[in-house]
């Protein structure tokens, strides 16, 4: 292995240190400085992740850019980082979204600017840590630590009902995580004193224990995904979070759960995963179909997008538990794509909310007349959200449906209904908000997007189109790792 610079360490700690520096700028008198430092920190944070993509070897499923230092020797916990084709994309996505969130919050956030920016930067570093950790305890520490900044972000800068939403978010996720912690300790004792995820992958576990562990992992990850029926925190948290918070929540935080499935549940508990795949697929289909219908009747745009996120994530878990390359790769593509599209949709709602201070669909109508540029962007993202070909949304959904078809026709049939529901709720909302005659004086007085907003949306639009037109750039990276994963999952560990 060639020596390499500690890019993963940098991608974790650059944003965190930048966040601490921002925090040190203090009160709102220095807001300009705080914003500037935050932007520089986010940009450097993004730049240090680029070598991960440039130097990534797509020919191997082994962990790359590995760093290994003893951390807590007492429990044999190591500062063990590394990425494979599955995780590297999320680090890039996260660093990218962080830059956008900092820019998007530039003018909107006027109170406690430093704390706002710092929370996002610190959270970004912690999220990179989750994706890069190869030591289960390190993973857990990052996984849990992300709750603190998110709790603060929702609670301080959220809307009316923010306290309720923040608490619900925190307690729901903590419930799952604590059971996950107990499971990790069980595995630690079982493996004879190792927290290495790679060791866990090789550990034989009897079926009864696998089943219990599977449900404990499920408790942690399903809340984060979120899967039906533990999804109820998400609409509350999304609706009350500030725009940037919603974007990060949807684009990155939700991926933690799905990532957990693919890093922990599938390879560590292959037998339980197979045995319970019917159960998981059922839950996923409920999310796809039922939540799709729920999204249809929402009067609040953010709630609608939140429910659409749950439906899309249902696709991801569906893809994982049909155990074939199309399904898993499609699910991963869907995760990345959803990262771009949901962030974009929330930012679009944010753009309107900043001007009108309402998220209700009924308060809008005819926005295209006053904001044509914005309407064009939102059109693209709405199309991506319902999975139109040539947008990123299509690729993932198509691959998962193809994978499902290989497994079972009716499965694929039910999964495919998402294309109809997705189109229905997204486009119907789009029609009511954007088209038609100008609904009221407020809409009549709207200003189209400025340069800053244009930049953010254009970057996301470019990403969505790039992924839609040339998905091979993404699937090539994950290919070797996904095949290796499936090979592992196929072998019983009893």
């Amino acid at each position, binding site marked *: 292995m060639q020596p390499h610079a500690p890019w993963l360490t940098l991608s974790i700690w650059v944003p965190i240190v930048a966040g601490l520096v921002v925090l040190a700028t203090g009160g709102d008198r220095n807001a300009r400085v705080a914003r500037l430092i935050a932007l520089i920190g986010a940009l450097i944070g993004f730049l240090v992740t680029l070598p991960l993509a440039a130097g990534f070897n797509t020919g191997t499923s082994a962990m790359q850019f590995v760093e290994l230092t003893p951390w807590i020797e007492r429990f044999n916990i190591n500062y063990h980082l590394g990425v494979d084709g599955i995780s590297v994309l999320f680090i890039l996505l996260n660093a990218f979204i962080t830059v956008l969130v900092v820019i998007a919050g530039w003018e909107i956030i006027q109170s406690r600017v430093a704390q706002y920016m710092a929370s996002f930067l610190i959270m970004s570093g912690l999220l990179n840590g989750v994706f890069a950790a190869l030591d289960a305890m390190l993973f857990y520490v990052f996984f849990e630590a992300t709750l603190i900044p998110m709790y603060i972000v929702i*609670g301080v800068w959220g809307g009316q009902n923010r306290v309720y939403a923040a608490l619900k978010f925190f*307690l729901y996720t903590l419930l799952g995580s604590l059971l996950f*912690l107990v499971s990790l*300790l069980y595995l630690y004792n079982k493996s004879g004193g190792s927290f290495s995820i790679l060791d866990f992958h090789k550990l034989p576990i009897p079926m009864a224990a696998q089943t219990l562990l599977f449900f404990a992992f499920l408790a942690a990850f399903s809340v984060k995904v979120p899967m039906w029926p533990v999804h109820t925190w998400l609409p509350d948290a999304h609706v009350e979070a500030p725009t940037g918070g919603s974007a990060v929540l949807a684009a990155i935080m939700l991926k933690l759960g799905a990532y957990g499935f693919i890093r922990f549940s599938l390879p560590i508990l292959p037998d339980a995963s197979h045995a319970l795949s019917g159960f998981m697929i059922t839950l996923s289909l409920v999310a796809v179909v039922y939540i799709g219908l729920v999204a249809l009747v929402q009067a609040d745009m953010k709630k609608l997008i939140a429910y659409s996120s749950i439906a899309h994530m249902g696709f991801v878990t569906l893809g994982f538990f049909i155990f074939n390359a199309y399904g898993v790769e499609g699910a991963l593509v869907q995760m990345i794509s959803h990262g771009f599209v949901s962030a974009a949709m929330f930012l679009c709602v944010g753009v309107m909310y900043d001007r009108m201070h309402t998220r209700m669909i009924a308060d809008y109508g005819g926005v295209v007349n006053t904001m044509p540029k914005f309407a064009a962007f939102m059109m693209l993202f709405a199309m991506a959200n319902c999975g139109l070909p040539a947008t990123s949304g299509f690729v993932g959904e198509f691959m998962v449906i193809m994978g499902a078809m290989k497994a079972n026709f009716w499965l694929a049939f039910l999964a495919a209904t998402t294309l109809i529901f997705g189109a229905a709720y997204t486009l119907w909302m789009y029609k009511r908000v954007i088209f038609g005659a100008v609904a009221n004086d407020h809409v009549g007085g709207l200003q189209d997007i400025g340069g800053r907003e244009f930049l953010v949306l254009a970057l996301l639009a470019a990403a969505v189109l790039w992924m839609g037109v040339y998905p091979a750039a993404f699937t090539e990276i994950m290919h070797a790792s996904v095949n290796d994963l499936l090979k592992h999952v196929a072998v019983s560990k009893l």
Partner: protein
Amino acid sequence: MNPFMPDLLPAYAEIFLVVMASVILIADLFVPGRDRGLTYGLSLATLVGCAVLTVGTMQAGGGPPSYAFGNMFVSDYMGNVLKLFTYMAVAACFVYSRGYLADRDLLKGEFFALALFATLGMLVMISANHFLSLYLGLELLSLCLYAMVALNRDSAASTEAAMKYFVLGALASGLLLYGMSMIYGATGTLDISAVSKALEGGRAAKPVLVFGLVFVVSGLAFKLGVVPFHMWIPDVYHGATSAVTLFIGSAPKLAAFAMAMRLLVNGLLELAVDWQQMLVILSVASMAIGNLAAIAQTNIKRMLAYSTISHMGFMLLGMLSGVVNGNWLNAADAYGAAMFYSLVYVLMSLGAFGVVVLLSRSGFEAEQLTDFKGLNRRSPWFAFVMLVMMFSLAGIPPTAGFYAKLSVLQSTLAAGQVWLAVVAVMFSLIGSFYYLRVVKLMYFDEPEDHSPVTARPDMAVVLSANGLAVLLLGILPGPLMQVCYFAIRAL
């Protein structure tokens, strides 16, 4: 050894402390003014001196434990580590409470003298190798604490709390003493190491021993403040002035932990099967009642009192998973985890009560949860310190409290008690609710009271260091965990 000139080296720190406490008591009579600068300085210097002497004995007796006073007093690695933390905690209490007490005209020499004598009691408890020296230390500590609770003699609440504490404390001491007498009856000795040997011999009458054990564990449970012997904790924490609550809530927990170690592990390890079952009940009940009752509190001191109960219950999880099926392999892990938990708890408790004391000004007690509203607006830094304390108490990484919970849970699982671990994390989840509420009040709500938060420079520095220590231990907990592990292994 020459009986007339016993080797007192292991007890130099205690001897120094008793001399200095007496000197301070007298010197204070000649100190003018409200500020008590000299008394304060001397008290801190005494603690530093004690720390130097303790570190000195550690190097001198680096290997096996050393004994003094005819085996009644032991100096070992665990004791010395606990003592060093005790000095730190007491010193922090002095720094935090000085301004608070001065504002209320309570800053008298007695406070320092009582606190130092209480510290002496704790040191004796930590180093006790004999039922009598243990009991002496305990009583010295308790009597000083009764008086300290009543320090604000014009306050009805304080007097009532002191009375309750005294009556219940005396009862608990009685129980403990009765239990000890039973064990003496069964083994014929009061020396803890000799008791252990007699039990290994297996000739002692089991029914009498177990009967005595029940009383010993009850007395212990009272001092630790675990359910169902917890009734005094909320009232005393609430009734005492915040500075005294700060004191009671911190260092004595270490002494109580040491007492548990000396009695149960050093002395009665042969009976582990019996006392571990008792601790299971105490532990689960404490976590349940502590966490549930804390939710209903509106007074932060009462809330933290119930939180203490739940934390002591959690700590007991470590104590009860040392011996599995007569096998001691897990012992160093489990007791080391419990010790780590106690040390971290003391740090957190100091920080949390420190902020409570900080917010109280002359003529105003920051006792209600609502007094924390909008603290982030008034003082972002101290709000952050309190945030760290709350997340640490809730056991969220990256704070020290997480690793404390982690190590205890690990030893519980290693002992095969999966259901206990699950119960513990479920109650932690419930517990996190009321810690989060404090964070909510500080960060999400607008302040009702806009007066600036001012801290004396010494307090600001120590409180900040306290907060950073909890955070730093959350990032690098390894060394302290190792220290605890070695401390227990060296027993």
